[in-house]
């Protein structure tokens, strides 16, 4: 059911193309850097440090989450590109299972997102944020899980998207709300109750909460983590499995 060589080569293709398209790499890295460096510094002068945290320190976990969100969604949306430009057929008529294609896409999307998260982490000393080695390792580990979760969600969406026209709708009605309702930029506890409920069904909330456990360990809500680490990990893992299963199933559908 799962064939390793096809999965390997599907991943390789994504990596080759990712590093070949420099604009995509720069684009996804520029966003969090802009937020941290420009907005973060700008807000620092406006917002007094709360509970010993500057605004830039507060949004840092959220910016890792944002990098992963955009990178993972972009990677998985490549399925729509593949379909539009015919390459998907090359994979569909090959003697490989649909599950292998989905897993290949999920792994490559995850690894590319983690790679970008690592680049952001390596840039932190220039932003005045200092991590211990242990924190670095913990964040990378969590980044794997969160990336896998968001990529799976993206693949599920991509599998159901018929054309590229739907992409803008996904960006405006899913990706941006996911970002704004995840506690990446402000504590979600300050939101009105209706919006707060939305944050609870957002997988990214739990992902970013995991990063907060590592980075803002000593802070209490609203600035620090909201849920227990166990709950965060459980929910992110659970959502990943559900999303990936549905994605594989919707790929298998055939008339």
């Amino acid at each position, binding site marked *: 059911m799962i064939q390793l060589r096809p999965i*390997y080569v599907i991943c390789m293709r994504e990596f080759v193309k990712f590093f070949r398209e420099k604009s995509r790499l720069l684009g996804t890295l520029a966003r969090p850097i802009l937020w941290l460096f420009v907005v973060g510094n700008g807000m620092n002068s406006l917002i007094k440090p709360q509970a010993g945290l500057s605004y830039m320190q507060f949004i840092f976990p959220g910016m890792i989450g944002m990098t992963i969100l955009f990178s993972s969604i972009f990677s998985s949306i490549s399925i729509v590109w593949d379909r539009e*430009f*015919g390459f998907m057929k090359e994979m569909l*008529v090959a*003697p490989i299972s649909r599950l292998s294609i989905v897993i290949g896409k999920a792994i490559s999307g995850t690894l590319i997102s983690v790679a970008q998260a690592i680049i952001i982490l390596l840039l932190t000393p220039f932003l005045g944020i200092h991590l211990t080695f242990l924190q670095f390792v913990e964040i990378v580990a969590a980044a794997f899980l969160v990336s896998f979760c968001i990529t799976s969600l993206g693949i599920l969406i991509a599998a159901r998207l018929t054309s590229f026209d739907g992409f803008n709708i996904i960006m405006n009605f899913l990706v941006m709300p996911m970002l704004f309702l995840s506690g990446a930029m402000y504590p979600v506890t300050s939101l009105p109750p209706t919006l707060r409920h939305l944050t609870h069904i957002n997988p990214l909330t739990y992902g970013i909460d995991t990063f907060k456990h590592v980075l803002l360990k000593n802070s209490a809500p609203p600035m620090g983590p909201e849920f227990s680490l166990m709950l965060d990990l459980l929910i992110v893992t659970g959502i990943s499995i559900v999303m990936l299963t549905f994605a594989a199933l919707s790929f298998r*559908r055939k*008339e």
Partner: protein
Amino acid sequence: MGIINVQNLTKKFKSLTAVDGISFEVNEGEVFGFLGPNGAGKTTTINILCTLLWPTSGSATIAGYDCVKQPDEARSSIGLIFQDTTLDSGLTAYENLKFHAYLYNLDRKLTERRIDEMLDVVELQNRKHDLIKTFSGGMKRRLEIARGLLHYPRVLFLDEPTLGLDPQTRNTIWDFITTLRKKEKITVFMTTHYMEEAENCDRIAIIDHGKIIALDSPARLKAMVHGDVIHLVTADNKRAIEEIRRIFNISAQEENGGLVLEVEKGDEFIPSLLHSLPVQTLSVSLTKPTLNDVFLKLTGRTIRDEAFQDNKEITREFVRSHRRAQR
């Protein structure tokens, strides 16, 4: 038993029957053509054979493998060249071929040798490490043929292999297919709506509205049209048809603003035709029968009139269902 076996194959898209109970057999090593207008059901049949679609009823086997029950085995036995390019334009020629080799689980050492071998055949060795973006339409098509053959398939499917290519490139592609046939001993199954292209096949199935209306060698099909074909343009075609029927007892058919009639010994017939026809004749020409004349005889239409009118709906319906199927 042929390498491809199709029995009572039917495919319905909602209310529309794209393929309507067709049966045929393709022998190992032959070039078999599906000829018909757009929307006749050619691509739908190919998509069922290559397991991208499931048939509504009937059965199809390739190299002994059932297309529904053993899709993976059937898929490893075939190579496919689709109507639209399915290369990744962001990768090089070599990377596209390597990707393919991995999907088909080709032996690692064999892969490199086979890639070079196929690139030589399609004369793209010097473009091995260039991005597909920089390739012309004909080069892309050649590379796709190389890719389709990389995993030693037993049947090569070509869906409108030269659609959208200029006549010169079309000829080059056919030269490749002929050479490949000698070298690789492969069965070729192709669809086309170009008559000239269909002439290259060993056997042709003429398909219209989802049904096979004739199946034979091009020569035998053309023999169905008796004698020669005269194309005639007159000042009043309607009246000319009546007059021809009255005087010669021959039924002429209207085509592209002119008349077509079949007669034996056309060269001797023309003088008497011009002499006795009371309608002014603007031009007259004599040809040996083509497959287009066969199609005209069988259906009363030419393939080209059909192309973009009646079957728009079929095409649209197909595209929709096809997209769904690809997910």
